[in-house]
């Protein structure tokens, strides 16, 4: 562990803050282990979460250290347009999720989105969707560990990368193993407060150093970076964020797919103590997310004025921390970044475990033996997978982490299957005529079409057209699902009862059945 206090001049108070934080998170997380008695407690916190905890947990689960590093880096390189991901790429989708998907999932009493798709379509759709998400979440897990070790801890503290990866794996693994979703959410609440204090400190110090927002605007314009202040870029821009892609690909497809179909996000609302708390948690989370670009993108823009000429935009935030923050505050900011990472790692770990237990191994056992896992076995499996995945993620983190721009890489990976997933999810919820074959064809052919779009060069003006790919793959899957559904026999009423939104919302009999299903 070379040079903990070395080149950066970390003071004793910084080290003390870091150690207190790590111990505190560990103790708080493991404390909730005593409340876990069954699989429901472990995976959906015994349905006891209040809206404020859900909202805060959603924000920190979604915003990791890689956002601080990657978004600030993209703001440094491309400008404020990257903030679209936390503005138009969040709020409308979170409102939609709050009033369409969340109450729907909450009432149907499922643990995971693939589980719903399995009930609505068939086992193949459940396993395919579950496997895609499980692989994606696992990759994210490894990537988060690597980014923090490489771009944050190594740059800021000089820590050995392998040491950092295993330290984080140990801290998050132990309390996620012990306390499940309750521990994850309650630790997230504390981490969000720390993250906001640290992030707002960096924002204020950045602007103070430059002379305020007006001075930042003037200096960016004077330096020839006026385009960095355009949030809506033209359709034919070379950059990856044209306004058409932002509104349609991001605002309508990727954001809704992410907020409604991402297990990490939805799992928190499934643990709500009531439907109002589930919806309110989503809205509160959206409101808090409004502030994220201020804490990440503006410091990225400020770095363009204060530290021009950085070769790698992703080093903007670590360099700003070194440049601006005094001892004590530097430790706090470091803890904020660490908190952002830990909260994303614990949430992703818990959700990956849930999907593997419920949708892959659980479904496989049911298909082979005809009998589902018992309550005790599900809890044991959940804990075994927690240990297994964090160890595997730590092992493969250096391999997965070798990518040029972290944020764009993740968005590109997401866009490969987000469009098709949203199409079948939306039709499955809203259209009773959607059939199992329609859903399967929409998902499989949709992912295939996405792959073709993604690797056919010259179709779109942008060099990295992941937003357009998301939009057109969504439209394609929507059409395929509708056409195939209309060509195949409708699903029996008994099968889809309680699984179509109109019934869930307004049919009293269905609501009674769902209530009984949840309480049993």
């Amino acid at each position, binding site marked *: 562990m070379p040079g903990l206090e070395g080149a950066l001049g970390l003071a004793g108070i910084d080290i003390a803050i870091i150690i207190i934080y790590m111990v505190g998170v560990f103790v708080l997380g493991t404390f909730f282990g005593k409340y876990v008695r069954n699989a429901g407690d472990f995976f959906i916190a015994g349905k006891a979460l209040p809206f404020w905890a859900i909202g805060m947990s959603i924000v920190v689960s979604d915003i990791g250290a890689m956002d601080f590093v990657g978004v600030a880096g993209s703001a440094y390189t491309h400008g*404020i347009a990257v*903030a679209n991901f936390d*503005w*138009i790429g969040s*709020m*409308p989708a979170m*409102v*939609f999720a*709050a*009033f369409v998907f969340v*109450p729907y999932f909450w009432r149907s009493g499922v643990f995971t989105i693939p589980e719903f798709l399995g009930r609505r379509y068939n086992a193949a759709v459940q396993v395919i969707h579950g496997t895609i998400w499980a692989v994606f979440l696992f990759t994210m897990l490894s990537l988060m560990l690597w980014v923090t070790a490489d771009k944050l801890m190594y740059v800021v503290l000089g820590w050995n990368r392998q040491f950092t990866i295993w330290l984080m794996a140990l801290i998050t693994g132990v309390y996620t193993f012990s306390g499940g979703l309750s521990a994850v959410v309650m630790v997230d609440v504390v981490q969000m407060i720390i993250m906001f204090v640290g992030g707002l400190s960096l924002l204020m110090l950045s602007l103070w150093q430059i002379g305020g927002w007006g001075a930042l605007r003037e200096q960016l314009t004077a330096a020839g970076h006026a385009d960095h*202040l*355009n*949030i*809506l870029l*033209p*359709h*034919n821009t070379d950059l990856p964020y044209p*306004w*058409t892609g*932002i*509104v349609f690909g991001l*605002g*309508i497809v990727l954001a809704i797919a992410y907020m409604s179909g991402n297990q990490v996000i939805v799992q928190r609302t499934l643990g709500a103590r*009531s*439907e*109002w*708390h589930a*919806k*309110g948690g989503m*809205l*509160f989370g*959206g*409101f808090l997310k*409004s502030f994220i670009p201020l804490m990440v993108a503006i410091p990225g823009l400020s770095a363009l004025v204060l530290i021009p000429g950085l070769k790698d935009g992703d080093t903007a935030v670590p360099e700003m921390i070194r440049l601006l923050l005094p001892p004590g505050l530097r430790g706090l900011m470091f803890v904020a970044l660490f908190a952002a990472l830990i909260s994303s790692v614990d949430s992703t770990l818990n959700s990956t475990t849930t999907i593997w237990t419920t949708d892959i191994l659980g479904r496989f056992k049911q298909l082979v033996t005809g009998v589902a896992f018992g309550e005790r076995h599900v809890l044991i499996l959940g804990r075994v997978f927690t240990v297994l995945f964090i160890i595997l993620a730590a092992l493969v983190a250096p391999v997965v982490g070798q990518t040029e721009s972290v944020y764009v890489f993740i968005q590109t990976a997401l866009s490969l299957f987000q469009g098709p997933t949203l199409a079948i999810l939306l039709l499955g919820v809203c259209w009773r005529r959607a059939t199992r074959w329609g859903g399967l064809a929409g998902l499989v052919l949709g992912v295939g079409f996405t792959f*073709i*779009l993604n*690797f*056919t*060069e*010259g*179709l*779109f*003006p942008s060099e990295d057209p992941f937003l357009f790919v998301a939009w*057109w793959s969504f439209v394609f899957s929507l059409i395929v699902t509708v056409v195939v559904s209309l060509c195949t026999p409708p699903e029996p009423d008994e099968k889809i009862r309680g699984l179509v939104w109109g019934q869930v*919302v307004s049919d009293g009999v269905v609501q009674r059945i769902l209530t009984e299903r949840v309480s049993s």
Partner: protein
Amino acid sequence: MTEAITRIFFPILNPIFSPINDFLVHLDAAAPVAKRLVTLGLFLGTMLWVYVGLRKQYVNLDAPSNRFWADLRLWTVISMLPHIFVYLYF
């Protein structure tokens, strides 16, 4: 792989996407305000949908209180206002 896929699919897909791209480029040039209007429309449309399109009982089911602060329609509007300001400003 990229070359092979491009060789096979570009001639099939380009006639579909090329006119769409051309239209959007012309739209940008002819009406620069269009992108702002469409973006704001997404926010305003979502707010209107919640306030007018959904029943109050559905939105606030299980609410802990009947007071105004527990009305999630109000939460929606308050949560979205900062975003509208942002897209008007930038």
